[in-house]
């Protein structure tokens, strides 16, 4: 599944980094403690986190996330949006919770 297909399937709000929409999704990772994410995020993962400051873009790049989804409609810092655009990594948002998002991704894809 590609990021742009995920955006469509889950009706995600595109906040930044749309240029990265052709990335392939390999799985889903959910965590908010950045040091833990750095150690465990797998390349190509959709990363769902409630953290919205600029460090998340750095962590997503380092772990080669396919995209980031901010759940529950949380507000996102301006410089996070700028950085995601610069780095061309899709920054997406949904009103759903992380759990609901995970369920929907499971429904919409064949990811394990």
């Amino acid at each position, binding site marked *: 599944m590609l990021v742009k297909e995920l955006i469509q399937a889950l009706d995600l709000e595109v906040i930044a980094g749309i240029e990265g929409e052709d990335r392939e999704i390999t799985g889903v990772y959910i965590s908010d*403690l*950045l040091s833990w994410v750095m150690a465990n995020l797998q390349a190509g993962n959709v990363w769902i986190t*409630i*953290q919205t*400051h600029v460090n998340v873009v750095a*962590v997503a790049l380092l772990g080669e996330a396919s995209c980031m989804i901010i759940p529950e409609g949380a507000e996102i810092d301006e410089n996070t949006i700028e950085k995601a655009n610069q780095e061309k990594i899709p920054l997406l948002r949904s009103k759903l919770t992380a759990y609901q998002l995970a369920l929907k991704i499971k429904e919409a894809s064949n990811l394990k």
Partner: protein
Amino acid sequence: MKELALHILDIAENSIRAEATEIKITIVEDVVLDVLEITIEDNGAGMDNEFLDRVLDPFITTRTTRKVGLGLPLFKLAAQQCNGDLIIESRKDIGTKVKATFQHSHIDRVPLGNIVDTIVAIILADEKIDIKYKHVYNSDEFFLDTVEIKEVLKGVPITNIDVILWIKSHIKEALKELVKS
């Protein structure tokens, strides 16, 4: 919490409930030593040693002492997750000092966040309380003292909307300059 400013607001609310008439908030950012230090000091009711021992235990404090709640344990956790710590000094009828330290560059350190709104919220909480806010960034510093502001105001309440808007933009501009330098 997503911003350290929310922790500051939370601790300052403890000070207000402890009937402090003066709250000192000091933020020291030293990028060279890689330290961020936040101190909230008040002259409120203070705590005796027995209370002080329990104040960092979330299970006991939420049961018996609603006043303090989870604020301090969570602030301490945030500091410890960033190679720092939180210490509390308090004396009954004298006041309380809460000091949290963080590794400035630690990946899990959330940003300071909206410190401007936090300071303004504390000022608005009770106009009789004096706030001394000092923010040090490396070798430069910004200082705001509501006692000085009240002197200039000559009786106009500090909670007056125009005064508050001025204070807001004053802090905002000063912090922008501070961090730039």
